Every structure is written in C-alpha cells, then in structure tokens.
C-alpha cells in the first residue's frame, strides 16, 4: 500500500517529453551555454539596434572624420564621420537578418526536398538528388559570385545566394534521416491505421528528423554570417552606406595602420558570432545525437 502511494506520487513527475531532458542536459554544458549567451546577446543587439545605438548609423559628418574615442563617440567615428559604435550595432541587424532568413530558406526548402525524396524514393528521388549533386559540386562562392554578378547585389539576392548553396546539404541529411526513420515499425503501425502519407510525413517523420535539422541550422547560421561578411567584403553585399560587419571590415581595411579598430572590431564581432553559434550548435548536437542519447538512457536505467 505504502509502495503504491509512493509510486502514485512520483508518477506525474516522471511523465515528461524527451525535450525537457534535452534542456536539462543543455544547462550542464558550459561551452554550449556560453555560445547560447553570445547568440542571445547578438540577437538582442540586432533586434533592439535602433533603441541601443546612440546615433544614426548612416548620418555623415564631414567635420568629425576619424575622431578618436570620446565620451560622445565611445568607439570614435569612421572615414565619413559616422558614429562607429552605432554602425557596429546596426551591423548586427543586417548581418543577422540576412543570416537568419538565408538559413530559414535553406532549412525549409532542404527539409521539404529531403522529406519527399526520402519518403517516396523512386524516380523523383533520383532526379532531384542528382540535380542537387550538381548544385553541391559547384563551389559555393563561385556560384554566389555568378548569380550576384547577373542579378546585381541586393538583400534578397544575397539571401537567395547564401541559402541556395546550403540546400543540398540539408536535403541529403534530412533524406538520410527519413530513410532510416521510416524503417521504424511505428511508421508501419501508422500506415496500418490508415494514415495518409502527408500525416506520416508531418506527424511521424518530421519530428524524428527535427534533431539533425536543428543542429545543422544552428551551425549553418554561423556559416551564413561569414558568407554575408565575405560577399560584403568583396563588394557584392548590400548598399555600402548600410552598415554590415563584412562591409565595415572592407571599408576599414585601407586605414588598418592608422585606425586599426575600424577593421578589428567588425572582425572581432564576426568571430564572436560564429564562435557563439558554433558552440551552441555543437552543444545541441551533443545532446540530440542518438548515440549520446543512448549513453544517457543506459545510464539512467541501470
């Protein structure tokens, strides 16, 4: 009787989704938490840029060129007298916006292709995957340069170009995960209950491949930010008056000897952002990786 009561009292607490376990593990991962904090900080910077930044980032002041650090301009001004700190803060905005949308673009398209090809296999699968192989074989930067040269640099073009190169990677990983997940007997069970393909894809397979998608997109956010920086550095990014970290790096590089901070700070921020997102992505992978999961499960049952 006593044992039964004890069982009953612990029962509700034991009933939790796997995701809560993941969060508990994530909290114990120091580097991952650091990465998460950095990512959160940069995200906040990007969202609240107009509130935080002390000046208008594109306001040119001909009489304040290359001003040193002061209380009114914490990081001084650049070659056109614009407040450097404000530009850095706003730079987070565009870099981040381009990165996020590009990653969302490749995640959605790649996942969709991966799900469909992995689930249905057959001719459509072979055709689509071979097309993606061609895309994959193309050097990404070359492809980006080519497309930007044709359509001209703009934010949508930048997003498309950065996202496009990542689609084959997503599609392949999702397809592989679907191929293995659909072998599960509970998929057969769902079919025997009369579930439609759409239902199986949406309710059974998508949640199953969510882990690799999450890992890949958090890792590729770092990559998208560097890609944006790289293209902006080459002058193929957005309008040069708009502040982006890559663009600022390029604008600051001629003055590296006299005013090194103009190039160093955007570079540092790019590095920090990449480090943050990579650390977070790594932590997520460690936690969601099925082999890690087994280790933890095995530990708990013994």
């Amino acid at each position, binding site marked *: 009787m006593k044992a039964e009561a004890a069982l*009953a009292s612990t*029962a*509700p607490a*034991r*009933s*939790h*989704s*796997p995701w809560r376990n993941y969060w508990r593990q994530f909290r114990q991962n120091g580097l991952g938490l650091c990465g998460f904090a950095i990512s959160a900080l940069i995200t906040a910077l990007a969202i609240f840029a107009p509130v935080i930044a002390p000046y208008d980032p594109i306001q040119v002041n001909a009489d304040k060129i290359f001003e040193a650090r002061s209380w009114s301009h914490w990081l001084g001004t650049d070659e056109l007298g614009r407040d450097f700190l404000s530009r850095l803060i706003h730079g987070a905005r565009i870099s981040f916006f381009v990165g996020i949308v590009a990653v969302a673009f490749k995640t959605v398209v790649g996942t969709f292709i991966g799900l469909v090809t992995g689930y249905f296999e057959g001719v459509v699968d072979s055709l689509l995957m071979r097309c993606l192989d061609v895309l994959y074989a193309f050097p990404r930067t070359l492809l980006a340069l080519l497309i930007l040269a044709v359509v001209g640099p703009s934010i949508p073009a930048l997003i498309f170009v950065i996202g496009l190169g990542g689609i084959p990677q997503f599609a392949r990983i999702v397809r592989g995960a679907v191929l293995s997940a659909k072998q*599960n*007997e*509970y998929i*057969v*069970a*769902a*079919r*025997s*209950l*009369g*579930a*439609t393909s759409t*239902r199986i894809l949406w309710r*059974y397979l998508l*949640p*199953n491949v969510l882990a690799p998608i999450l890992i890949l997109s958090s890792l590729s956010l770092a990559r998208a930010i560097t890609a944006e920086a790289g293209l902006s550095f080459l002058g193929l990014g957005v309008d040069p008056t708009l502040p982006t970290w890559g663009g600022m790096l390029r604008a600051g590089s001629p003055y590296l000897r006299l005013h090194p901070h103009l190039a160093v700070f955007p570079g540092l921020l790019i590095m920090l952002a990449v480090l943050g997102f990579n650390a977070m992505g790594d932590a997520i992978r460690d936690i969601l990786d099925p082999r890690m999961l087994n280790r933890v*499960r095995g530990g708990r049952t013994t």
Partner: protein
Amino acid sequence: MSLLEIRNLKKHFPVGEGWFSRGKGAVKAVDGVDLTIEEGETLGLVGESGCGKSTLGRTILRLIEPTSGEINFLGKNLLSLSQRDLRTARRDMQIIFQDPYASLNPRMRVGDIVGEGLEIHKLAKGKAKRDRVMELLHQVGLRDDHYDRYPHEFSGGQRQRIGIARALAVNPKFIVCDEPVSSLDVSIQAQIINLLQELQEKLRLTYLFISHDLRVVEHISHRVAIMYLGKVVEIAKSDTIYRDAKHPYTRALLSAVPIPDMSKKKERVVLEGDVPSPVNPPPGCTFHPRCAYREAACSQTVPPLEFSADGHGVSCHVFGPGKRP
C-alpha cells in the same frame, strides 16, 4: 462465407536491381499461399525465421504490396482497392507487432498513440476521444494515469498492451498478431496471451497468430498452418497437428519442442542441412533436399496442398491424404 480468403498469394522481392544491372532474381518470401480464416477463429502460423510468415501477415494487410494473388476480405478483393478505399478498409484489419519498443513512437504520449486511429478515421474528438481511449486502456489492463505518459516509461509487457489498445481503437474484425509475445518474458507472455484470448471472446475478433513458438501457438490457436520457404506445407486443427502431423517437416519441428518432463523420452528428428536460399528454392517440393522420406517425384513436381475430409491439408507426395498413413 469465410472472413478472409487468400488465393495463390505471392510476394517476390527483387534482388540486385539497379540502374545498370539487370535483376538477378527474387527472394520468394511468399510463394503461392492459399488460406482461409473463419470469423472468430485463431489461425496459428508457424515456421522458422525467414520462412516468410511475417511477410505473409503484412502482405495480407497490404502493408507490403503482393506480387500476385487474391485476398478476399469481408467479400471485397483487397488488391483491387484504391489507396483511399484501402485506408477506409484498414479499420477492419489491424496488426500487433513483435517488438513493443520499435512499434510505439517515442515522441507521442500513450493517449495520442492509442487515439491515433480514432483521429485518422474521425471516429471521436475531444472529450469523446479521451473517454474512448480511457476505455481502451482499461480494456487492456492499463490505468487512467498512463494516458499522458511516454512509451519509454513502460515495461515491455505494458508496451505490448499499448500496442493492442492502439489496434483495438478502430474496432477491427481481424488482427494479425506478428509474434506478439516473442520478445517478452515467459511470465509476461502468458498475461498477453490471456489478454488476447479474453479480447477475442468479448469482441469476436479473428486472429492470424504468427509465431515460431509451437507451445504458444498450440495454446491459442484453433487451427495451425506450418510454413516452409514461402509455402504452407501443412494445415489442420490445432490438436490434429500436435497429435497426427503428416508432413515430415512438421514432425521435425514438433520433435524439437522441449517437453518439461524428464521421464518422457521422445524421438528427436534432426534435419540435415540448412534452409535453402529463398532466391533459388529447390525444384519440386522445396523440402526434398532435407527430407528423409524423399522419393523420385519429390524433386520433380511441386506437391499440391491436398485436403482430407476433416480439413487436414498436407502438401507432400509421400504422406499426403490417401497415401501412406
């Protein structure tokens, strides 16, 4: 009319097919099976692993598309149904799986797993769905508070009960039990077997009970079919099979069942050789290379499954009905 009638059902899996290579043959997992199952009965299906019994079970439900043949279920030919009609027809036929760990989605709550069929066929929603799921949980011996739990919180036997509740949700008439107790402890096996029998009585269910365990099959089945290399070699009432087996393969199988009685000595028939590859099954009777009683005809022609007056079917040139006793 019988609930289920299978005529010359075949499932061949192609081997070594690719873009540039021609097919190298096929695994004949199910190779011309005829079966009838009456309403309310349990037909046991026995055979070694790899003989095609699971494939047969899944092919009957069209979870695997058959290569050829005919499946008449409740007067409809299942093979002529469109995908849409097939989904509707699935309400009447369900399956219980061997591995209760692989057959439940780890990311869904028990209530959602059991209620999935209700949702798919729009049988109940909201409160009505919850009530029905609770009723099903009680029916299989689970409790209310299991509703919101995840599968990993249950033992193997409990998980198997969840699988049974899921199958029952849509009120099926026919259930394929694909080795439902093979992965459970012996003590739990008995519980699940009893539950299945109880449910059969209460809900007038019909089972195709697939197993490699002859004792379990003897206990639960009304009739038993023995499968070897994709074919049914013998079929009879349960007690007939165990008392008066005709086919040499059946006799070898039965002699391998351990008897928990040291005083009883029994004759052990040991088969020579291994099960031949189902890609290139031997000509004639597929069992003849391992058979101690083989005759000239055995390697020439396939023996048909012939029935005696009491419904005992044997596919054998030597021991078939009207031949040697």
